[in-house]
């Protein structure tokens, strides 16, 4: 049996090169400790809500999260009324109405997150030609996942001597090529946390990345819980099957 397992593991190591090494020039990503990592990790609800606050007040000025609806926020512990209140602060373009006109109305829980710009072209026009990516699945869409997004957000600095930045570019040591159009988005106390947590750049980045990791895979906790049950069931079933196999084969061996 060991041989068989080893063989399968060997087959899987084929997959390892697919997880390609980082860009040569970028330093290795420092690992952060996340509440949701590991087989039993769950999202820290307070961090998720603080993270949403950072997204809502800072990131959402440029970045859309069009795959999420306000209703989904029940997954990070907001109640029905809180969600309605959050949605109602947004203006949603709806229509056409009976006159054939589009119109603005306050958001509802069923609306998707309102994007800051009506289309990519408008977004580029406002950002010197750069397009801020949609953040719905950003944690899964980047090599290095949550660590990468955190390191990117906290990796801004002045360019080292000898590096000449192109116009409207900023230096970030974790961004591939190091020149990123996004200016450092976070700063100390750029948000005020209602739970009294001190809003440092590191804290804000950690919170918003926790939120983004949840947003990329909202069923993650459910998935891990189900997985534990499934695997326990399979272990018992396989044990019984092994016993049955031994018994049936006893007379052949």
């Amino acid at each position, binding site marked *: *049996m060991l041989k068989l397992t080893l063989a399968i593991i060997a087959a899987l190591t*084929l997959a390892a090169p*697919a997880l390609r090494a980082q860009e040569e020039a970028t330093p290795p990503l420092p690992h952060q400790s996340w509440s949701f990592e590991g087989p039993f990790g769950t999202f820290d609800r307070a961090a998720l809500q603080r993270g949403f606050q950072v997204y809502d007040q800072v990131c959402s000025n440029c970045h859309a999260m069009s795959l999420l609806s306000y209703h989904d926020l029940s997954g990070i512990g907001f109640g029905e009324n809180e969600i309605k209140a959050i949605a109602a602060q947004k203006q949603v373009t709806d229509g056409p109405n009976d006159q054939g006109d589009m119109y603005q109305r306050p958001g509802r829980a069923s609306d998707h997150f309102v994007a800051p710009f009506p289309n990519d072209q408008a977004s580029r026009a406002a950002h010197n030609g750069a397009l801020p990516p949609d953040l719905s699945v950003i944690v*899964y869409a980047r090599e290095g996942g949550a660590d990468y997004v955190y390191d990117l957000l906290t990796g801004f600095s002045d360019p080292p001597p000898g590096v000449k930045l192109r116009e409207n570019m900023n230096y970030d040591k974790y961004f591939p090529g190091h020149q990123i159009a996004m200016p450092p988005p976070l700063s100390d106390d750029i948000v005020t946390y209602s739970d009294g947590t001190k809003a440092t750049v590191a804290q804000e980045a950690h919170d918003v990345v926790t939120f983004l990791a949840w947003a990329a*895979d909202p*069923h993650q906790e459910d998935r891990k819980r*189900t997985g534990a049950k499934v*695997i326990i069931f*399979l272990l018992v079933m396989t044990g019984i099957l092994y016993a049955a196999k031994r018994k049936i084969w006893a007379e*052949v061996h």
Partner: protein
Amino acid sequence: MAAPQSQSKVVEWIDHRLPIFTFMRHELHEYPTPKNLSYWWNFGSLAGIMLVIMILTGIFLAMEYTPNVDLAFDSVERIMRQVNYGWLIRYIHMNGASFFFIVTYIHIFRGLYYGSYKAPRELLWMLGVLILLTMMATAFMGYVLPWGQMSFWGATVITNLFSAIPVVGNDIVTWLWGGFAVANPTLNRFYALHYLLPFVILGIVGLHIMALHTHGSNNPLGIDRKGPQDSIPFHPYYTVKDAFGLGVFLIIFAVFVFYFPNLLGDPQNYIRANPLQTPPEIVPEWYFLPFYAMLRSVPDILFIKAKLAGVIAMFSSIFILFVLPWLDTSPVRSARFRPVYKWVFWLLVIDVLVLGYVGAHRPEGWYVFTGRVATLYYFVHFLVLIPLIGIFERPLPLPTSISAAVTKGGGKLAGAAARMEKP
């Protein structure tokens, strides 16, 4: 054909008119199987079960998926977010593709080691190669459906390969695309074919099993069964052994589905397809990497351009398997009794792993050289080593029978044979 004795009048009534119970009894209960099959023989049934899992999850995904360039990415994300247990079905389907290839590759290498392709199982083997080819086409088209960056650019690169064909190449590519670029018509036809091909595979699997049951399984000794003392009925011996193997397999599969669902995937495919932005590197899924390495390794050969030569090498690497039964000149099946082939087999395994490793990296410097050597060796293995070893190798003496080798006399076989007689 004697009707089976049955406790049920209904079963008897049906069987008299439509002998499905007789058929099942014949193919499962009476079907004689070598008594010495190792766990390496589990992977055929595992591949069959993976095919069923892929078809079932695929049908449920198809109910929610939209094959349109503007909607495909969002419809997949909707499955992941809004559809009840959509994430589970999609992660099973997504990782299932990888695991289907893992068990199939092990199944193929088992056949290579134990000479399962030799007479009288040549057609059984060729049907298997046909299944592999159809699986590859299905997997490739399935990967295009989520319409992420790697879907789009993978489709572009692979379909462009056909442009290497002289004279008609570009016309073929336009015909494949249904236009002048990978676009909505391409996605639509890939979806239609991705739904169709698994059922084609199912049909070929039926023939594969029919061919298998004609002469029965090969075995680790590679010698024919000489009589009832060498055989046990498939049921219950191999049904329970396969079931246990399935349990072990499902545990490993579940670890991936529930805890590392994206480990085997590419982050680029979580980015919506963008025809105007090429990803930093275009890499296929891991199970295509050895073939991708061959494609990129071959240089210009005389008047054949590198692109065409690469395409020829890549397709030949599979087609060569079709003629393997006639390339192998050794009358001995199992590598256990072939002292030279045994080593050459493991060199081939290493060679394919090296090709996979090379395929995951940019063809620069060291990787180019390694890729070329490994590609060359792959063909040398099949075209030079296999025919020559069969001629010059001195096989070890074969055991007289399976039972002689396994139980040294077959003392307890009466019990097993008696079980076979029970109603």
